[in-house]
């Protein structure tokens, strides 16, 4: 993309943000179309299943709409949206887990230890095929650390676990993935 095109992209985005702040859902739809695939990728990896990932993606954009007034333009919109989406996706995941915990025995809420993904994935998503088979907590830590670039301190804070637990879950995930790859 050349410099002029990049500039236009930023101009469009700034305009859409301002319009959306004033309640324009069409402008927000433009923002959605520009960023939804990144948000969905994050949600799919954290959720480990398509229906929940879809619900989480919706939650993220509804939250972004509600919080749009807080976006001051100090960072790029994509960065702001990504941070917000990580927080929202984890909250949605927690809510989903709490919901099922009422009906399932505790051991079942960690979901399948290593299971087949419920939905077939397209080609080019080899790693995701394996990630979706990881146990939930290990998967979340692995995605945040290895794919999203969060530190163990940040993950510990986000997930309300200790730094040591984050590291342990990451190594567990890594070992399981290497086993699946071998």
């Amino acid at each position, binding site marked *: 993309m050349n410099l002029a095109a990049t500039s236009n992209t930023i101009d469009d985005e700034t305009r859409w943000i301002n319009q959306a702040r004033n309640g324009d859902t069409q402008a927000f739809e433009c923002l*959605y179309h520009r960023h939804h*695939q990144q948000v969905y990728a994050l949600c799919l990896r954290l959720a480990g299943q398509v229906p929940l990932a879809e619900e989480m993606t919706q939650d993220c954009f509804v939250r972004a709409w509600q919080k749009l007034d807080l976006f001051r333009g100090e960072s790029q919109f994509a960065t702001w949206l990504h941070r917000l989406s990580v927080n929202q996706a984890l909250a949605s995941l927690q809510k989903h887990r709490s919901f099922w915990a009422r009906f399932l025995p505790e051991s079942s809420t960690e979901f399948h230890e290593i299971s087949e993904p419920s939905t077939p994935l397209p080609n080019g998503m080899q790693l995701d095929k394996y990630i979706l088979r990881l146990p939930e907590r290990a998967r979340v830590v692995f995605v945040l650390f290895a794919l999203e670039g969060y530190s163990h301190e940040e993950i510990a804070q986000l997930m309300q676990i200790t730094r040591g637990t984050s590291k342990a879950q990451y190594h567990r995930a890594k070992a399981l993935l290497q086993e699946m790859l071998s």
Partner: protein
Amino acid sequence: MSKPSLEQLLELAPKAIAPERDLWPQIEQRLTAASKPRPMRQLLAAGVLVVVGALSYTLWQPQQRPNPELLAMLAELQQQHQQQIAQLEQKSQWVQWQPASLTTPINQGVSELQQASDKIYHALQQDPQNQQLWQLWLWSQKRQIELLTQGQQLPVPANNPTQGIRI
């Protein structure tokens, strides 16, 4: 051909994945239902703050102000409030699609608040420097506006509003 390593797969992992279906229609539905701070509400809140600030300043002046000025301000505020209420009620009539079961409690509440507000107003006319009466009066006005605004945002009933929701 050997299997790719985990590190290689991490590098190849896509940053973006397209969902299998269009998620926007459901998001849009939720946006319209979500309570986004409206400029009207913000203006009202700011207005109440300004009035409270102005009144506090007026009431705590070291020398007593003559009553006519306060009475004039009181009358003016009452008039402005009545205008605001009239505007909101007119708006409510345009969007009169809610079932009576939803609007009746709100209308009743607004009417009770109006009666209370009128009584406080008369008491204030007798004692315009009573700070507690001022606060009570402004609070009753604020609640009235909030209730009317809530009434306009009642949910759209399903096809058959008398039918319960099946979970």
